[in-house]
């Protein structure tokens, strides 16, 4: 575990809302976190929890219907007031992103060498030849076998795992301070996922890149992250060092998430006969909540929970939860659905 030496990315009170004819959707509601140099932070949650919108807000890539507020500081520099042109200069150089679908996020009409070299020519002003040389090195860095041959291949000639490596090579070409990875292994097979996670670990060590990884897979979080931010309905409901949060989850949603995956590594108990269910579905927020957002699905919810959305409070050093009744109350496995 690396201790953060300096803060690379600081997000404070980030809000994202969408206004359309169907009304307003509050996608991200007051999210704050920071990432240190060489640190891996995981944003965890189910679909609709706002984790991808948080990443898009950081990249300045929100759709035009979205409104963003709050503060995003990258190595001390405030990003929220920047113009499109200034943001373009930063994207790919200072902060870059890889996506879930390596199939659709590479331009099919260029060779992978051209795609990687383009980043270098655009941001670092390298010549065509120098950029291609560097592209070969980068493909080697992400462990693409025979990079000198494969640099001239087109994305469709590559497997999903190889394409995701190309995405990573493009993303780290200019040695960015922060790499956002949105479900980078979700579309891949487990043996390929293990390779990609290995490469990301490697990059963090070799280049000191700070990584924000967005995932719903708790195994991936346990494997690669130093700290974790659990999101629900656009709110951070729990945050802390991965070891602490996994060993002593405080928020009922975190407890529910951890209980909902089969745990073959644990000795069977009577409770392991069934998985923990979280009844109901993730709500779509249309107005600021007047109660805890998780209360409608929470086994602990009482009148106090229905008064206001609780703020994050420290439950242990370095660990915070937004819950009126935090703590590891033993859940009844498989509560009614």
């Amino acid at each position: 575990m690396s201790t953060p030496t300096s803060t690379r990315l600081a997000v404070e009170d980030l809000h994202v809302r969408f206004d359309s004819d169907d009304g307003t959707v509050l996608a991200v509601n007051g999210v704050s976190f920071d990432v240190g140099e060489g640190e891996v932070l995981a944003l965890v949650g189910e679909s609709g929890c706002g984790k991808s919108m948080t990443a898009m807000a950081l990249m300045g890539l929100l759709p035009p219907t979205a409104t963003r507020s709050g503060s995003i500081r990258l190595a001390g520099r405030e990003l929220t007031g920047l113009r499109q042109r200034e943001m373009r200069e930063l994207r790919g150089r200072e902060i870059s992103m890889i996506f879930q679908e390596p199939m659709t996020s590479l331009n099919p009409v260029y060779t992978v060498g051209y795609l990687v070299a383009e980043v270098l020519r655009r941001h670092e002003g390298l010549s065509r030849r120098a950029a291609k040389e560097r592209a070969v090195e980068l493909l080697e860095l992400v462990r693409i076998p025979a990079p000198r041959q494969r640099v001239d291949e087109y994305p469709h000639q590559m497997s999903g795992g190889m394409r995701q490596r190309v995405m990573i090579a493009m993303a780290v070409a200019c040695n960015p301070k922060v790499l956002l990875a949105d479900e980078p292994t979700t579309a891949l097979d487990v043996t390929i996922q293990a390779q990609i996670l290995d490469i990301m670990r490697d990059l963090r060590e070799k280049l000191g890149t700070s990584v924000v990884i967005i995932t719903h897979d708790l195994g991936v979080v346990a494997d690669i992250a130093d700290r974790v931010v659990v999101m629900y309905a656009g709110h951070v409901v729990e945050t802390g060092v991965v070891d602490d949060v996994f060993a002593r989850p405080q928020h009922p949603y975190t407890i529910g998430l951890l209980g909902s995956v089969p745990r073959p590594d644990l000795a069977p108990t009577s409770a392991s006969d069934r998985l923990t269910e979280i009844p109901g579905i993730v709500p779509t927020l249309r107005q600021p909540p007047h109660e805890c957002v998780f209360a409608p699905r929470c086994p602990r919810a009482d009148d106090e929970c229905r008064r206001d959305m609780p703020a994050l409070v420290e439950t242990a050093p370095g660990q915070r939860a937004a819950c009126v009744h935090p703590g590891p109350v033993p859940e009844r496995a498989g509560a009614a659905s």
Partner: protein
Amino acid sequence: MTESPAARSSGEPILEIRDLVKHFDVPRSRGGGVVHAVDGVDLTIRAGEVVGLVGESGSGKSTIGKCVVRLLEPTRGSITLHGRDVTHLPQGKLRPLRRQVHMVFQDPYSSLNPRMQVEQIVAEPLRMHRIASGLAARTRVREMLERVGLSAEVARRYPHELSGGQRQRVGLARSLVLEPSLLVADEPVSALDVSVQASIINLVLDLQRDMGFSCLFIAHDLATVQFLCNRVAVMYLGRIVEEGTRDQLFDAPRHPYTQSLLSAVPLPDPVKQRDRHRVVLAGDVPSPVHPPSGCRFHTRCPAAELPLCREQDPVLVDHRSDGHRSACLLVREDGSAPDITDITREGRARVHHQA
């Protein structure tokens, strides 16, 4: 999991797959050739058994499922259901098969007719097989919906009004309303959110215990398979490479591929995960158009001994006559197998562990 897997496997065979082969021709415009999707698979499912079929994409596991329900025509081999050969039944004579075997699909969004109400969707098998109509059908549909945890008010809704989890419940209700003897579930939870996955897995578990159907559970998620299945078969490039009871396979995996799969799945426990020695396989799954010679896994196998593994094609062997079969040339006669964790940790030293 109240009965031991051994007790269950004493039931009569419901489904017997023998030497199943399914090849697909690649159009000449795409380079031609033959995809060896399934290349000689034997699998038996007995009454009340839940058999997991695991493997990565392209391993052929879904193709087997589709051959069993005859959505695909097998190239060779035989599929026997309740002792009756159904491999090449003509379309017109498939109806009895369709009554005994039902399938649940991965994508609950595209596998329900968007123009039908939930009630109609679940009633359709009853109508098609002329088992019930009118009030009788409606009553059975309501009972089935209740069984899968859907309230009566859902009956009049259309699929687009439902959540992913609810849709998968409808899919299960439709598949089970005829009380089939075999359910083929092809990745039924992988398109769902984790917490919803949990409720569907619990539901499959409950329904199987109540109704007693056999199940071929196709999945890539090993933890789910370990949770749900009595027996497990692991596939690689169109072949079963290892098969055994849940405990045999997960506690003492023999085939290096099974071992690497288990090693690749990250445990949701950061402390354990950090202390584990992870085996990361090199390279991708080779193309099923040109599967490697000999053992198909030899190109990625950390334990491979060349030229042996490149030249000889291993068959599934039940080394200890206990139903635990593996297709690896390096597994010894007493069932002891190379431990790829040790091999990758200690270089190329040959280390055998006692199985």
